[in-house]
């Protein structure tokens, strides 16, 4: 094998190995990028001046307006958790779903699907649900694998169900309407969500010990109490969803700005919950049998002044946690941009393209091969890099593909884009490099081990592949709705 091919492959190998050293992911990425740049220099495959592209790439991250949504959604999730609003909602959903097997996991899947319709990225939902649902699931003795898998997979739906940054970038690269892609992704998104629901219900009825139901003595005693509980716990999140979704649908804010609106909404709701209601003397919702963790989500008593001061402490804590999680994420972005740049400069793309060109396969064979490559790349790269590598390179090939009457020629590109999008869902979950895993690991309670997360996502990755197969076999899942809605 010529050295030009060996270096990029060695880079893969180094990443796969050194990530497991336990040194922070962001710096492992940066270090390997740098090391292979120098290695390339030693073999005349790279020049030091090429490193000068790095600040440009980092600046591209700084300058990206869409990415400002990430800290805002993290703020929203953290605020909801620290102010007790999220806990109230989840407690209430538990009571309502207590007779359904895996009720809490279902509640998470449903929340994930709703949140997906309000955000275009994955970070927000995964962080919020890991913060609020994971501790409660652990407290209720849910299997850690089931809990983490459910949260990671349903949180990831945010980037498939529109609005979605991923579809926007794909539409741009494929030069096709974003609107069409958004509509086309709706059913595949709900298909995945539905598969998760069915899997959870079936699994939990077969193995109830994975998801112990809520003991009968916990929760409100009377119908009136239940009604109050529903009111008190559903009103704040409903306000927030109306605020976020409403500002997008009502045309007040772009999907990116809606994140800021949501964060501001969460700030106000937190203030109401921690200051206004206690001062007005509205009693807190008690949920007997609940272990009060070290959360700040309860009023402190002692009048308006001390409640406000307590709120100030909560806000400082939320701001700090938001900033740390955000810095963790952008640290990975920055490290990964150096890694993938050097990978590409060493001819890494060429290896992939040559593989496809040399295959000599027909349309079906090529489709499966490309999807296979994407699935494999998903273990090591994030979706942005994969989309940037694979889509432009393969677009001309895809446009020539012929699937006879299975998919009309003019619809092949849309169909392919949706297949890519569903396929890329796996990249968030597959180790070692998966953003949903990183988010979750960053905020999950200490007792959740990374191996539990790895094992937990396996069934959900299989479900995603099942969904992918369904859209391959029945293209109408993606193509029917745009046909009906948009001429």
């Amino acid at each position, binding site marked *: 094998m010529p050295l030009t091919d060996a270096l990029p492959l060695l880079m893969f190998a180094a990443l796969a190995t050194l990530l497991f050293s336990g040194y922070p992911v962001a710096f492992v990425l940066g270090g390997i990028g740098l090391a292979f740049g120098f290695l390339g220099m030693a073999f005349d495959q790279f020049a030091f001046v090429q490193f000068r592209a790095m600040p*440009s790439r980092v600046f591209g991250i700084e300058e990206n307006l869409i990415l400002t949504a990430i800290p805002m959604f993290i703020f929203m999730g953290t605020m909801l958790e620290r102010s007790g609003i999220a806990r109230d909602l989840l407690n209430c959903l538990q009571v309502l779903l207590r007779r359904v097997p895996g009720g809490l996991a279902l509640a998470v899947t449903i929340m994930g699907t709703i949140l997906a319709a309000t955000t275009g990225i994955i970070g927000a939902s995964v962080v919020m649900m890991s913060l609020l649902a994971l501790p409660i699931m652990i407290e209720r003795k849910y299997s850690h694998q089931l809990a983490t898998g459910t949260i990671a997979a349903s949180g990831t739906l945010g980037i498939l169900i529109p609005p979605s940054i991923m579809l926007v970038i794909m539409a741009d690269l494929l030069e096709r309407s974003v609107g069409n892609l958004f509509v086309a992704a709706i059913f595949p998104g709900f298909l995945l969500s539905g598969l998760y629901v069915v899997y959870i219900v079936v699994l939990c009825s077969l193995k109830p010990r994975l998801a112990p139901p809520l003991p009968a003595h916990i929760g409100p005693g009377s119908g009136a109490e239940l009604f109050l509980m529903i009111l008190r716990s559903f009103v704040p999140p409903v306000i927030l969803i109306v605020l976020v979704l409403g500002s997008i649908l009502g045309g007040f804010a772009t999907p990116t700005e809606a994140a800021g609106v949501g964060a501001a909404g969460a700030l106000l709701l937190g203030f109401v919950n921690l200051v206004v209601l206690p001062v007005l003397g509205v009693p807190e919702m008690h949920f007997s049998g609940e272990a009060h963790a070290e959360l700040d989500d309860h009023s402190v008593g002692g009048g308006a002044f001390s409640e406000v001061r307590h709120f100030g402490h909560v806000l400082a804590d939320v701001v700090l946690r938001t900033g740390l999680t955000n810095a963790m994420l952008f640290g990975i972005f920055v490290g990964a941009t150096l890694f993938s740049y050097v990978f590409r400069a060493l001819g890494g793309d060429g290896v992939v393209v040559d593989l496809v060109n040399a295959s000599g396969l027909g349309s079906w064979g090529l489709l499966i091969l490309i999807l296979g490559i994407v699935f494999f790349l998903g273990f090591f790269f994030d979706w942005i890099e994969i989309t940037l590598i694979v889509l432009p390179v393969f677009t001309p090939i895809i446009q020539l593909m012929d699937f006879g009457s299975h998919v009309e020629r003019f619809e092949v590109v849309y169909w392919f884009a949706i297949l890519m999008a569903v396929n890329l869902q796996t990249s968030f979950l597959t180790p070692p490099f998966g953003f949903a895993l990183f988010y979750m690991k960053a905020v999950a309670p200490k007792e959740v081990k990374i191996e539990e997360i790895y094992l937990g996502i396996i069934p959900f990755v299989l479900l995603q592949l099942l969904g992918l197969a369904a859209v391959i076999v029945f293209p109408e899942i993606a193509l029917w709705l745009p046909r009906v809605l948009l001429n």
Partner: protein
Amino acid sequence: MAALLNVSRAIDGLLAVVGRLGAWLAVPLLLVIVYDVVTRYFGVPKFFGFNSTQYQESEYWLHAYLFCLMMGYAYIRQAHVRIDLIRDRVALRTKFLIEMLGCLFALIPYSVIATYLSWGYFMQSYHSGEASRSVVGLSHLWLLKISMPIMFALLGLAGISVFFKALAGWSGRLPPEMLHDTIGTDDDIAELVIPEETAEAGRRA
């Protein structure tokens, strides 16, 4: 060793001040977004003679500083995610070794070279008086671009601090209260107690 640990303490103190201040940028970010949305729709006047484009650009300025100022602090606060599948199973001393090697061969060279490169990138912008790409946007783009050398310099400092602490830990002289800021595990404190006594003895001798 005590001197090195004092260097670490000083660096950690600096990172904490910068990081904790930087964290509060999330609040102006949120306010600018909401303000921009509100002025766009409800006829509220725009302050300071800024236009919508400038508000929108200031959003990513704020966000850039939000993560740049916190990047180094996040390391000593153990917020940078690790895949500790294997690390969880090794001896404490090996963990210190991993951390030292990581700082020495990954983080510190990476930070040094990135600081150098982004400094040049910033200087070019500074000397050319570069403004926003948008004709109606913000001027003085170097004020944003300098965030990059700042971020990488802080990251490099964090690497130096952790390296010293890990070195102390590896040679059995790390005070237990500094353990978390070095490698992030709490459950091994027991292992540290004896080395700490040795260290105390060493210091008295």
